[in-house]
């Protein structure tokens, strides 16, 4: 049971033994100019718009930008400033809290995916569409509705809470609650995607295992615990990685739900928002480059750490 990250399974055998020489040197020469015709347009664009910018950002992170532009070398200055910057730690903490709340959706998605893939369930594809809808919807557009739902005065959420005698807060304009509100929307929009990935994993579990455990008298809850979850660990791991990486990139929802000029922003912003505001609002591009490198490093560390940890709990038979 290996996780299928992509349709790639195996590299096809190059050629039958007899044709080997033809596919070797001669074929290579025959391809001649053609490979470059195919590959150069992409390579040129990727080089100009991705590879060069990555190298340039790494350089920028060691420079200071004047008011009128122009970068001067300043060594480790940006990084030292970053380490002493309380706003960075606030943004980091917010990003982690947001990620933590969105991750709560993963066990929920496991449960819902196993329900939606119940054999012979009617309306399953209808449910699938409903749960997936938030994932394909434009984040900035749905954020506008959520703003009205979360509104402190006339929002439907606080109205619903008032039925239970709870006085709801001003979600969008109270520091702690604002982040929770963003995370709720984040969870709402990513749940369906996790369910789909997990659903693909569920299809790979041989049905005989369920039949066998049923004959042994296992209850459905027991089957879920002893068959479904252990055999699903590769997909769960994949969903965790994707959720963490995409949550670390929180920007769209935060920006659109709270509004960029919201006074709670300093206490609620994510790392990417801090990057954006330094680089494109305050125009401190050298410092923003250092923040970008920090995000890069952070995602790298977390991913490597996840892959290390994975050996302990992911079932890779």
């Amino acid at each position: 049971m290996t996780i299928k990250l992509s349709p790639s399974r195996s590299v096809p055998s190059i050629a039958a033994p007899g044709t080997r020489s033809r596919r070797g040197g001669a074929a290579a020469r025959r391809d001649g100019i053609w490979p470059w015709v195919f590959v150069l347009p992409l390579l040129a664009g990727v080089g100009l718009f991705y590879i060069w910018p990555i190298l340039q950002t790494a350089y920028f992170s060691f420079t200071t930008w004047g008011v009128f532009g122009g970068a001067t070398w300043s060594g480790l200055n940006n990084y030292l400033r970053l380490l002493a910057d309380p706003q960075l730690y606030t943004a980091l903490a917010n990003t982690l809290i947001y990620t933590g709340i969105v991750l709560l959706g993963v066990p929920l998605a496991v449960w819902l995916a196993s329900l939606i893939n119940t054999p012979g369930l009617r309306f399953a594809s209808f449910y699938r569409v409903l749960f997936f809808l938030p994932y394909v919807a434009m984040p900035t557009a749905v954020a506008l509705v959520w703003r009205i739902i979360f509104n402190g005065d006339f929002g439907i959420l606080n109205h619903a809470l008032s039925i239970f005698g709870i006085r709801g807060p001003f979600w969008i304009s109270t520091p702690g609650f604002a982040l929770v509100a963003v995370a709720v929307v984040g969870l709402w929009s990513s749940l369906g995607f996790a369910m789909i990935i997990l659903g693909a994993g569920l299809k790979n579990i041989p049905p005989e295992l369920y039949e066998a455990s049923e004959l042994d008298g296992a209850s459905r809850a027991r089957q879920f615990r002893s068959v479904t979850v252990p055999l699903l660990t590769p997909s769960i791991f994949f969903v965790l990685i994707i959720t963490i990486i995409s949550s670390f990139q929180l920007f769209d929802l935060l920006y659109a739900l709270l509004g960029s000029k919201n006074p709670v922003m300093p206490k609620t912003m994510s790392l990417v928002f801090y990057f954006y505001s330094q680089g494109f609002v305050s125009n401190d591009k050298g410092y923003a480059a250092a923040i970008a490198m920090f995000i890069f490093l952070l995602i790298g560390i977390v991913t490597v750490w996840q892959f290390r940890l994975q050996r302990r709990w992911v079932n890779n038979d």
Partner: protein
Amino acid sequence: MTSTATGISAVRNRALVRTKRSRGRRGGSHVLVHIVLGLGGLLMAFPFIWQIIMSLSTNAEVQSVVPTFWPAQLQWQNYAAVFDRLPFLSQLGTSVLVTTIRTLAQIILCTMAGYAFARMRFFGRTVLLAIVLSILLVPSQVYLISQYQIVQSFGWLNTLMGIVAPGLFSAFGTFLMRTAFLNMPAELEEAARIDGASPLQTFWSIMLPLARPSISVLAITTVLWSWNELLWPLVVSTYANAMPLSAGLATLASDVTVNYPVLMAASLMAMAPVLIMFIALQRRVIDGLASSGLK
């Protein structure tokens, strides 16, 4: 002998009956599953339903402390007001153009490059592929500042070219298409080559049709990403008229002069094209995203 055989088959039959019966019981308890999924689905769809209701209400109804679950009179003119009060049409045009150009460009460029990386031999292939794929490991913030500098130096700020440019090229698309071509049988190509087809002919008339499923995955992911993307268009366009819908709506949100129902109508229309595409092609979109794993 026969008696034991029938005995065994009787036991098996009984076991089969038992499984069938428990299947039946499972079928009966689907009610609970439907309740959970139905409630969950309603929760998922609620913001969209609420949005539709709000878009047809008056501003006073949206802001009434006791929620109006259905407007006294359907305010269809809110939809017309979107075109009067916001630069909606020009933003919609930008979104459509940006998404179309990027999708076509990615299909052409990534398919060709993916094919070359999978099936052709040339100097530096492995190294170049590794360099292209390494971009997938880097979060977009790392190239954003410098992309901005480049677009600015070309004088492309607040232009369509500026929004479109970096998104014409995709490492993910190249990876996706290379994988697709790797998994195809080599014999077809061999046959075409022996028949004297040029690499371009082989690619165009034999390999490309076979890659159609992966091309549709690439198209779907690109449309979704391009239509919904916020950060890049926000950075390179400062005038409302130059923005695509995603950035336009986000900046509009900070503007208090626009009333809620009009805002709801605008945001509903902004996401409609992608939602309609999803509902029309649901199986393909879901399977495509599940198999590609990443956006």
